[in-house]
């Protein structure tokens, strides 16, 4: 009774409003979520937690999600791929309907999603969380066939293992090249974490080898921290070639396993080509991408700027200053779920604050981070002044060890929240 009274007291002000609106509304508002990654799974769960009456259907072709964070440890032989794999079964236990199908189209007028088996799912609100697709051909010579010889390993799974096998098969003294695209792409510090952990492997197992990063940029996330750590941990092993130093790869030749810049042709033993990216294909099919290939959104609700009642979260969205990270995807998912629950109840969504925290490992016991708080400012998610920053450059090794441990704890926490 105490609980009920307290609750009723808190809800009295809303009673009248809800009476009118729910008399008109259907009993069970329908939300369809496309994509069972960090964004989609977190959003489906948060929707159910915020309002159990919402009928939530999660559309995902795969029974298992393979997580990218920490997959660089798999590449470097420090972790097995199964530690990255998460079944989606437990979401069904939360009352979420799982549609094990590929979404093949969106009809914004009819508010329906088409599935590969011909079925159609109607929605009141649609959440699109497809992650990234690779822009095959955007880098001349790099298509799906080329990726079988020169792996991207930018979607975790078979490609991750392929890159690992190539490193294991390489002779001591071999050259590894990582090609990095211009912004924006999934996980801004990811290529440099990968270079670090591959260097960790090479230093221990193939110490005469060398790693070159060919970059289409002149600056990168946590740059000073990475570069200091490379000097400290892997002296002479990693070379970073910036855009202005001629680092941009302009074409690749899969047969010759070579990469060309404007100045030089590289012929490494192992070539990891991280190609330009775009929002997952369903976003394009649904007409919610702009000329950049990504999805513009409202920073309060994550509703598409192109189509009403469709929301976009995670890597596919243009979330202002927020990077494309798993933490950001999970945080956006919860904000979007609250906004959608409010909209379905006829209430006004509140202006959010959204956090991003992103750890990188430069060695298994050496972690560095970047963090910031974001809020809608002039129609974009912008950093709150003073909240953004990276780990101190002069921190003692105890701080690096602590950040590596926290990174591990973060991965357990976020995967439990999304899939556990």
């Amino acid at each position, binding site marked *: 009774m105490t609980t009920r009274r307290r609750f009723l007291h808190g809800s009295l002000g809303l009673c009248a409003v809800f009476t009118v609106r729910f008399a008109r509304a259907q009993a069970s508002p329908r939300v369809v979520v496309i994509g069972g990654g960090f964004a989609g799974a977190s959003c489906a769960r948060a929707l159910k937690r915020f309002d159990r009456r919402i009928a939530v259907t999660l559309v995902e072709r795969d029974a298992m999600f393979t997580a990218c964070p920490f997959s660089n440890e798999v590449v470097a032989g420090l972790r097995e791929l199964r530690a990255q794999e998460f079944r989606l079964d437990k979401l069904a236990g939360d009352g979420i309907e799982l549609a094990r199908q590929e979404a093949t189209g969106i009809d914004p007028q009819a508010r329906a999603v088409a599935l590969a088996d011909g079925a159609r799912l109607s929605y009141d609100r649609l959440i699109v969380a497809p992650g990234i697709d690779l822009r095959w051909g955007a880098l001349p010579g790099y298509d799906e066939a080329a990726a079988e010889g020169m792996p991207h390993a930018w979607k975790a799974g078979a490609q991750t293992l392929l890159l690992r096998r190539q490193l294991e098969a390489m002779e001591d003294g071999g050259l590894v090249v990582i090609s990095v695209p211009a912004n924006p792409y999934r996980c801004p510090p990811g290529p440099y974490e990968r270079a670090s952990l591959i260097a960790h492997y090479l230093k221990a197992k193939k110490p005469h080898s060398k790693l070159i990063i060919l970059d289409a940029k002149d600056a990168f996330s946590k740059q000073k921290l990475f570069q200091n750590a490379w000097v400290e941990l892997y002296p002479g092993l990693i070379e970073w070639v910036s855009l202005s130093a001629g680092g941009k790869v302009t074409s690749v030749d899969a047969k010759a396993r070579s990469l060309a810049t404007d100045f030089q042709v590289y012929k490494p033993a192992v070539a990891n080509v991280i190609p330009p990216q775009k929002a997952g294909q369903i976003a394009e099919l649904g007409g919610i991408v702009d000329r950049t290939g990504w999805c513009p959104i409202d920073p309060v609700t994550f509703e598409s700027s192109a189509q009403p009642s469709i929301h976009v979260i995670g890597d596919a969205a243009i979330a202002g200053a927020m990077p494309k990270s798993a933490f950001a995807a999970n945080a956006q998912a919860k904000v979007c779920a609250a906004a959608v629950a409010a909209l379905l109840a006829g209430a006004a969504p509140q202006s959010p604050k959204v956090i991003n925290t992103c750890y990188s490992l430069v060695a298994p016991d050496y972690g560095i981070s970047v963090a910031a708080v974001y809020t809608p400012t002039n129609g974009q998610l912008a950093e*709150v002044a003073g909240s953004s920053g990276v780990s101190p450059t002069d921190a003692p090794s105890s701080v690096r060890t602590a950040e590596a441990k926290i990174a591990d704890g973060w991965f357990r926490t976020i995967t439990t929240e999304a899939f556990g």
Partner: protein
Amino acid sequence: MRCRSAYPAVALLAIAQLSVAAAAEMPPGASSCSGCHAVSTGVETPVPGLIGRPAADITTAMEQFRAGQRPATVMDRIAKGFSQAEAAAIAAWYAAQ
């Protein structure tokens, strides 16, 4: 209480809305915390949980993080993204869970 006694159906609808009311009351920023601060028990992590922690503990920690007076990894940065009032609202929300 008039709402409940005069219109039982209204009260039922309102009860059904308990969870939405809870979502609406979740203050800005609070939902991001659970990315690191586990809501589920049994997650192996060095990061302390926030659920049920006294609000004063959280607000004090946030003030010390903001002022650089408490050893931190990322919280010294994140704390600067919230005013005292915002941090207090988040603390109260987690304390009440």
